[in-house]
């Protein structure tokens, strides 16, 4: 398509929604003025105009699909015949599924921990030096780019050439200059997972960093000064004052990154596509959506597993929301 027709399509798409709200409200006002008595239904109709588009979208794209996916997990590959727990028993026996669960657990332990830790340390360091904001900007930058883009960046870092050749991947060049053999990093089982996790840590540290930076400013200076006068070392201040003070923030960042990691797909799909024992749930799910014409039953079971993973966080969010509403 040409630039012109693309632009027209885009414009029509956006204007459609603007026009909907404008004309429906215009019509309502028109009838309100014409009505002799107080127009009793006005408020109800206005509420419907305001919430209907969003609610329909919410229903079609989130609410209905969630229940439909759960239903499909008990049906066969085309979603027509009820098969009970067959898909679940398949999953338990499937070696790829087992591998995915183990890898997802690894991701869940390593990535949130490391990102939060690096974010906290860097936020503290950046607070002390005059070029701190530039440093923060640089470390935050990976947050803006896509997982696939980050994948290419790191695939280039991990590039492997035979032992005799010039290495063009930085990691292997360093390894060789230190006297080691070059390695095809992404094909070494178990360890390759860590190399993939490094990409996610590289991206998410920036998120932790900016949130911590904002939170750090709320620590009263008097407390820190008092501790310094009492002769506490910087390390001691970090562990005994700053970390306890930021407990809530740490928890929030942890949950955000945890949700993200449970759904990790792009990095695996672009870098290894689950080969060399790097399979994760989201990639396996995508695979089953299309493998052999697609198996909606197995795909649904795998999606449901991801949902189960986020359920504790979902419940906790709802609980906190309820607490907030009371206040």
């Amino acid at each position: 398509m040409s630039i012109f027709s693309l632009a027209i399509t885009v414009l029509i798409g956006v204007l459609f929604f603007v026009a909907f709200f404008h004309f429906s409200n215009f019509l309502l006002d028109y009838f309100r003025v014409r009505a002799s008595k107080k127009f009793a239904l006005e408020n109800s109709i206005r509420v419907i105009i305001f919430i209907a588009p969003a609610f329909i979208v919410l229903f079609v794209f989130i609410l209905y699909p969630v229940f439909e996916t759960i239903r499909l997990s008990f049906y066969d590959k085309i979603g027509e015949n009820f098969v009970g727990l067959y898909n679940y028993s398949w999953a338990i026996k499937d070696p790829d599924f087992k591998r995915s669960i183990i890898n997802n657990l690894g991701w869940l332990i390593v990535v949130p921990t490391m990102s939060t830790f690096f974010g906290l340390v860097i936020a503290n360091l950046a607070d002390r030096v005059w070029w701190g904001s530039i440093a923060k900007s640089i470390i935050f930058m990976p947050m803006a780019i896509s997982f696939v883009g980050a994948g290419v960046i790191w695939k280039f870092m991990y590039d492997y050439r035979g032992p005799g050749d010039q290495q063009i991947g930085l990691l292997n060049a360093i390894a060789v200059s230190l006297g080691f053999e070059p390695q095809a990093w992404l094909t070494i089982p178990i360890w390759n997972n860590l190399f993939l996790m490094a990409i996610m840590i590289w991206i998410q540290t920036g998120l932790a960093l900016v949130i911590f930076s904002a939170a750090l400013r709320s620590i009263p200076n008097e407390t820190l000064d008092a501790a310094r006068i009492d002769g506490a070392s910087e390390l001691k201040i970090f562990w005994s004052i700053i970390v306890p003070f930021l407990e809530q923030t740490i928890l929030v960042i942890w949950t955000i990154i945890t949700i993200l990691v449970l759904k990790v797909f792009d990095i695996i799909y672009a870098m290894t596509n689950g080969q060399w024992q790097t399979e994760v749930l989201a990639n396996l799910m995508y695979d089953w959506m299309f493998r052999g014409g697609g198996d909606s039953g197995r795909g649904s079971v795998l999606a449901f597993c991801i949902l189960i993973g986020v359920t504790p966080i979902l419940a906790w969010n709802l609980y906190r929301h309820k607490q907030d509403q009371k206040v």
Partner: protein
Amino acid sequence: MKKITFTSVLSQLLLLFFVVAWIVPTFGLFISSLRDKDVLAISGWWTSFTTTEINEIYRTEGKDAQIKDGNYYFIKSNLFDGGQEKEIFRFGVTSKNIDEYEVGETALFKDQTEITVFENGDYVWKSKEEFKKKKGKRIFVSAKSPPSFTLDNYKEVLLKEGLGQAFLNTLAVALPATLIPLIICSYFAYALTWMKFYGRDILLATIIASLVVPLQMCLIPVLTIYNDFGALFGVSAKSFPGIWMAHTGFGLASTTFLLWNFLKTLPSEMIEAARVDGATHYDTFIKIVVPLSIPSFASIFILQFLWVWNDLLVGLVFLDKHPSEIILTAKLKELLGSRGENWEILTTGAFVSMTVPLFIFFSLQRYFIRGLVAGSIKG
């Protein structure tokens, strides 16, 4: 002046270490995208700032280029295709001894023909008899290559590899997929904050729950709906409006939640005063709430725009892989598979896909951070 202490030096060094570790991968990609593709394939990007010595193989021209001068036949030409700023310092004519001769010396081939290679790549190949072979001979050269950068890779990637079209496609996906949720969610969030209706609290709780529902839970049913819809009306199940609505659906909860969070901080007296004066909810929304919400709209716009721009999964599922529909991330993934060893294509392609996010990042960082800090839980 703060005094320089051991701790402060140590923290500066530690921070410097982090900064370098974080920037080097991206920097390497950027530099590589500007290098000549032949050099890129055989030397690390960190060597590109200095004059490097490289060993290369070239081929002379064949019999068609020969001229007769006196008793001898000559082929005179240049090994480089022109435009290359390399400086040859040694050369050879057999693979066993690739740097046998000093530049300017005359080498003898097995067939008794003689060749002289000069610094700039010029050569003179001399023979007593007529040259018979159509193909020339291989010449091994050791050359010094000064740092040189080029935009050739960008031309190639944008025009020949179809990344230019993919860039436009991504734009055509991302703009509506950001504006549509912003429009419908702002009305929705207004209703959730300022209108009284039955079921409001349940709706709000549903939004909070939807925030963390993984995208994967929705893909199969939505795809089925699209396929049925397409079959029913005889249209393609994969289209731009389709993916706009999918992104609208998947971004609806977070957009609504962020807007609701902002709207409830507005003073309720102001809204109520307008209502008492007889303004309808629509007037209040357009004339009071929207102008006050511009900064928060900006933050949410940036978050959702970057999310859509960087998305791969939704683009894979709801758009065709055809060049007229494929988005940048999907195209990049395709290139990773098909051109895995062509680093000039991959590095340049990746950088093209990063231009818009990086531009937004550097120009609107403040809004981006504000949006993220306000609550970046996304389904």
